[in-house]
């Protein structure tokens, strides 16, 4: 069952700008095989469900349409999903060099 996304909610919509066959010739093969895709966020203009073609009003007041793909999209980047312990060694090494403990 699809949940109704209410008018006025902050959402993300998706569009295909260029299909693979419409892409420019001056790009690598692997890029030519995939479409040029676009995402933009805005306030939903009418109730809808995920997957519907909808219209949104962006933060600048522009109207944009596309497939509804996300509601209240979150920022997913941070400080990495795995810790890289090698980095700890750098500071220790240069401090040893400065103190004359390592050449």
């Amino acid at each position, binding site marked *: 069952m699809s949940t109704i996304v209410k008018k006025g909610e902050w959402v993300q919509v998706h569009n295909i*700008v*260029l299909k693979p066959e*419409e*892409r*420019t010739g*001056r*790009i*690598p093969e*692997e*890029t030519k*095989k*995939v*479409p*040029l*895709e*676009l*995402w*933009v*966020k*805005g306030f939903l203009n009418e109730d809808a469900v995920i997957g519907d073609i909808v219209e949104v009003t*962006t*933060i*600048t*007041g*522009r109207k944009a349409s596309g497939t509804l793909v996300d509601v209240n999209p979150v*920022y*997913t*980047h*941070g*400080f*990495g*999903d*795995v*810790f*890289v312990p*090698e*980095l700890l*060694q*750098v*500071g220790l*090494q*240069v*401090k040893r*060099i*400065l103190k*004359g403990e390592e050449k």
Partner: protein
Amino acid sequence: MAKDISYDSVNARSNEIIKDAIGVDYTSYESGNIAFDYEKMMSATGYSLEEVTKINRETGVGNTPLIELRNITALARKLSPEGKGARIFVKDEQCNPSGSFKDRRAALSVYQAQKMGYKGVVAATSGNYGAAVASQAAMRNLKCIIVQECYDSRKVGQPEILEKQRKCENLGAEVIQLTVGPELHYTFLRVLEDTGYFNASLYSFFAIGGTETLGYELANQCKETLGRFPDYVIATQAGGGNLTGTARGMIKAGATDTKIYGAAVDLKGLHMASDTDFNRKSFTTGHTGFAVPYATDPDHSDVPRSAARTMRYMDEFLIVKQGEVFYMTEVLASIEGMERGPAGNTSLTAAFALARELDEDQIIVVQETEYTGAGKMPQPQLSFARENGIDVLFGDPEDDVPGKNIILPAHPTMIKARYFDMEKLRKSYIKNSVKHVNATWADEKDIEFLIAETKSNREFVIETLKSLNIEIK
């Protein structure tokens, strides 16, 4: 009648759209052949450097501190022969409102847009420039749209770019996110045409004119605090605006003897428009994938003639490796207490290697830092690299293979500044400038233009033109 919005039609209207969106007709700078009047174009801002400085200050841009990196200098001296180890300084550009020198590059465009009555500004950028335009637009009560190359076809984005997107949104901008590919320009043109907003291009004379304040300030700060101009200034090189603006400002301050070096990370083998290489890059800018094509072919940006002309000003081009930059970023944090980067740390890495070759009394200035944090620091960058199958290990950076591994130097003496072949760059530039206008001949005006553009001499220019079968008139 509704305009044809097909890919070919919009691209065919490109010149007209850009003209409306920047308020300047670039054809007035053209000679009809290879040469164009660069200085006339640069003066089209209509503002003196003093006025530009004043405009920048209105929105809190500039006047950033010049900081001596005493511990990094001491480290370089520990690892150098007696008497070697130049003093390294950094211009702490993260102190600008949005956290990078890009505020200087945005300030004048946004000021101009407001003055000319545009309702908003648009910029095509995946870098700090987006946040800079958004920040300036916020201060000047203009709307802002940033068009960003952001994801691969799996909708996976480089954490650094995702952070820049977040920052633009937090500063009130609308961010249009795209997958990899140069056709971003089509979306960009459509947005300009639909909104009627100003094109806050990274490559316009407004952008480079604004950046001149960086070099001017830097030169004067050195003069005031150290009694003389620096011997070397190193700028991280990508589109070339950073180096060009800085060099022009240095010259305006009278620092004509200072050597201007560019620095970039070696990303040889990775294609910039490749969907699969996109997330195998641990550097989103300041790398050879942008630096070389923009230096040798500046006029392929979002304006008809780029104001960022690296080859006019760059004395040497230093190449560093990925792992070396991550290493130096950690060094900056651990012994200087400064979390910065990544961008400025490419030139810091080159500066560290260069310092070891130079005498102790020499002065090197790394001309920028940028704000850092989530997505941008070595932890998230190397974590992301590992998740994308890149090996991260200690070893000899010479064994670095972009897209396959990142080698942190086992010892700081392994950090090297590799001199790129400038003659090759100059020849390539001349070839591209000939191709740009499909020239078959060159006259005195073209030759003089190319001498200035390549910072070379008549003999070299004529010889290169002849090798391209160009008739000398």
